[in-house]
């Protein structure tokens, strides 16, 4: 057990020693892996940000009903009752035109425009929340509401949310595919790196085997090297992505007041980062495994 631990420690030192022997080539390799991994990681970070923002949008289907004429108090009450009683309606909220104008005025940039208006151009409105996001229900209610007296425009608000969701689903699949492809690239890079290392180390492997080294002994430093390559490349990728996000964040902070939105760009969280590094390490291990099982027997076996 102690001998085993000792050997692991020696293998690690040995693998790091090999890195140090060829610092330039090793760094170049790590950067290649880092850039390759930065692409899917960046796409993932972008996607999870979009998802975060999409998640804060109302996903419950809503129908906005704008009234054509200024109704009396009694008309409002009777219309509200009819809406409430329609099948498939969860809740009904009346938004008087003054309230709507007031909420518009709060948006930066628009207050000047609104102040210049002589009268409120907005209609009174009802916001109806539906019980299900079923398209049939919203279409049926849309036509039903349009026929009600005093109703001007009827607008189904949730359509675009659903469109975003289906777009996000496509984006998720795209990120997954990108990750698979570039994960494959990482395995290939490790495979080749270790192959070259095996060729360089051929004599040493041969002599070690002649003095009684087991296959496991000979392989172990290569595994350390492959995993280190994956993890170091992963760390570079993390730095690239987090750095890029910080730059974007600064840019967005400048854009925010201009467009009246308050964008929140979230950096990758610690659990995400750690599992990413773990994943990169596993890919490095896999590349080493494939390379070592292929090349140690053709070049090092005696």
């Amino acid at each position: 057990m102690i001998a085993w631990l000792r050997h692991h420690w020696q293998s690690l030192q040995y693998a790091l020693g090999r890195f140090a022997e060829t610092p330039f080539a090793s760094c170049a390799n790590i950067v290649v892996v880092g850039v390759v991994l930065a692409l899917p990681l960046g796409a993932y970070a972008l996607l999870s940000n979009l998802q975060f923002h999409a998640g804060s949008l109302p996903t419950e289907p809503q129908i906005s009903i704008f009234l054509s004429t200024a109704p009396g108090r009694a008309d409002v009450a009777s219309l509200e009752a009819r809406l409430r009683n329609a099948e498939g309606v969860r809740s009904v909220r009346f938004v008087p035109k003054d309230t709507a104008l007031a909420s518009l005025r709060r948006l930066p940039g628009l207050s000047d425009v609104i102040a210049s208006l002589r009268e409120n151009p907005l209609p009174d409105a009802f916001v109806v929340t539906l019980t299900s996001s079923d398209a049939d229900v919203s279409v049926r209610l849309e036509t039903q509401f349009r026929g009600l007296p005093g109703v001007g425009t009827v607008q189904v608000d949730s359509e675009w949310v659903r469109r975003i969701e289906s777009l996000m689903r496509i984006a998720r699949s795209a990120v997954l595919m990108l990750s698979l492809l570039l994960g494959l690239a990482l395995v290939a890079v490790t495979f080749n790196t270790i192959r070259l290392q095996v060729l360089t180390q051929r004599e040493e492997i041969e002599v070690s085997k002649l003095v009684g080294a087991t296959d496991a002994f000979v392989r172990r430093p290569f595994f350390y090297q492959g995993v280190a390559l994956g993890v170091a490349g992963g760390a570079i990728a993390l730095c690239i992505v987090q750095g890029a996000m910080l730059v974007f964040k600064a840019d967005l902070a400048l854009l925010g007041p201009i467009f009246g939105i308050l964008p929140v760009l979230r950096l990758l969280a610690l659990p995400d980062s750690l599992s990413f590094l773990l994943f990169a390490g596993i890919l490095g291990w896999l590349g080493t495994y494939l390379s070592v099982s292929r090349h140690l027997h053709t070049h090092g076996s005696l």
Partner: protein
Amino acid sequence: MTQSIISVRNVTKRYPGGLEALSGISINIEPGEFVFLTGHSGAGKSTLVRLLAAIERPSSGSVLVAGQNVSALSPRGIPFLRRNLGLIFQDQKLLLDRSVFDNVMLPLIVTGQPYRDSMRRARAALDKVGLLDREKAKPIALSGGEQQRLCIARAVVNRPSILIADEPTASLDTEYAQTITEMFHSFNQVGVTVLIATHDRERLERGRVITLSHGRITP
């Protein structure tokens, strides 16, 4: 049954292309023996050494070393067989980018010995062959005789029960070859079984001589 430490039974080694390097030879070596394996070049000496070290397998027959059937050994068992052997090769197989000391350390590192203990044993082995003051040098800076002594130090550092050397004195002048042979005798005196393959017929004293000719043993 035999108590031989090395037992070669009816071994034939045929290479692809039809060359038969060994033709049905049988050899028994007892523990503590000192044996010269001699013959013209191409007689099969090196082939026999490679069979004993499990570098190659016989085409037929069996090879037993230290109680293990080398010809039927699984790849997993080979390293543990070699740890019982001290091997000295014709082409030396030194690591030229490592120091003399590191070359001797290799068999100890490979077997996972404690580092401090290993250092002590490596220095003791270098001392025995008179290379202690050259431990930091690279093998390339050593003379031919010193390189050969380094090979011996590496072969004995693990305290093997059997020492097998393939042409250890081939490239050395007479005086130096004599020193090397004396070294083998001193290891033999402490109980190590020694097998030396050599074409040099001058120094076949104080030991059993087995002569090979065209893959067969000649009386």
